[in-house]
């Protein structure tokens, strides 16, 4: 039964992923559609970050918010992505020890 559910979940995740690959060669988009598609990565980043970041740590929306601010500051300084990630983890870890 569980394998049946897994098979169903697999189909449910594969369909949205591969349909664009299957149809893209047949589609010719107008310039405004191209602009919308080019904006999607930035839009997706925004929608993925907020408000989800507030639920990083159970019952402590403040931890996620502060961790996010640390990540913003470290990105502004121009650090490599790996240090931004490590820095944000460290900041949340320290907060979880302190508060």
């Amino acid at each position, binding site marked *: 039964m569980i394998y049946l559910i897994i098979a169903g*979940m697999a189909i449910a995740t594969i369909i949205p992923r591969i349909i664009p690959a299957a149809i893209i060669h047949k589609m010719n988009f107008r310039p405004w559609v191209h602009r919308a598609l080019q904006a999607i990565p930035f839009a997706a980043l925004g929608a993925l970050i907020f408000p989800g970041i507030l639920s990083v740590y159970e019952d402590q929306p403040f931890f996620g918010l502060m961790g996010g601010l640390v990540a913003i500051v470290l990105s502004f300084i121009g650090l490599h992505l790996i240090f931004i990630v490590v820095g944000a983890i460290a900041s949340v870890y320290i907060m979880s020890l302190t508060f």
Partner: protein
Amino acid sequence: MSEQIDKTHVRSKKEMVRHGLVIGLPIILGYLPVAITFGVVSSQAGLTLGQIGAMSVFVYAGASQFMGVNMIAVGAGAIEVIIATFVLNFRHFVMSLSFMNQLREHSLIRQLPLALTLTDETFAVASMHTEDGKEKNGIYFYTILFLSAYAVWVLGSLLGGILGEVLPERLSDSMGIALYALFIGLLIPSVKQELRVGMIAIVAMLVNLLCSPFMSTGWSVVMGTIAGGLSGIYFLKEDEHT
């Protein structure tokens, strides 16, 4: 990483593979604790190692897998789980459409492995490195980026299933910020270059926030992403030449 790319030098396949691994490192770091946690949670919920592995190999979608295991544990029906998975993962349709449009000139055979292993994270990193992807051997860069993330996800979830709690709970909880930090670290450099890009992200955030009381997380992320994308029709108007 803003290493100077020598325009006259076309990087070899091997160089592109190495570059893909380096660029993909933050995803690997972010996936490992989540994958291990998935393995731990699933084995506690009573899934066998084979089922854990099968889920990571064939479903390969973090949030959906956690939700699926939860629903299985409370005895939800198959149809319920499958529909919830579809709703949660529909955002990948929008992302895949954007990315496959980027890969237009490649054949379906080369697009398929990337489409199948597209996640929030691989899509986001790849989309911020389209300059690398446009190079002659760019497809190798994308492919190794996507496949290394996939491998770590599968291996990590098996590791969690075998070993149980490998990471101290406080540390794995704190590592929940990792993927958000990754997204922020990807977004900020583009915002620094082009403020309009930040406006697109803010539109997406606000629409997601406004929608979230009325619908599931899956749909509100989709709404936010589409709204942000549509705002790009206006915000990206001036760079028609790119």
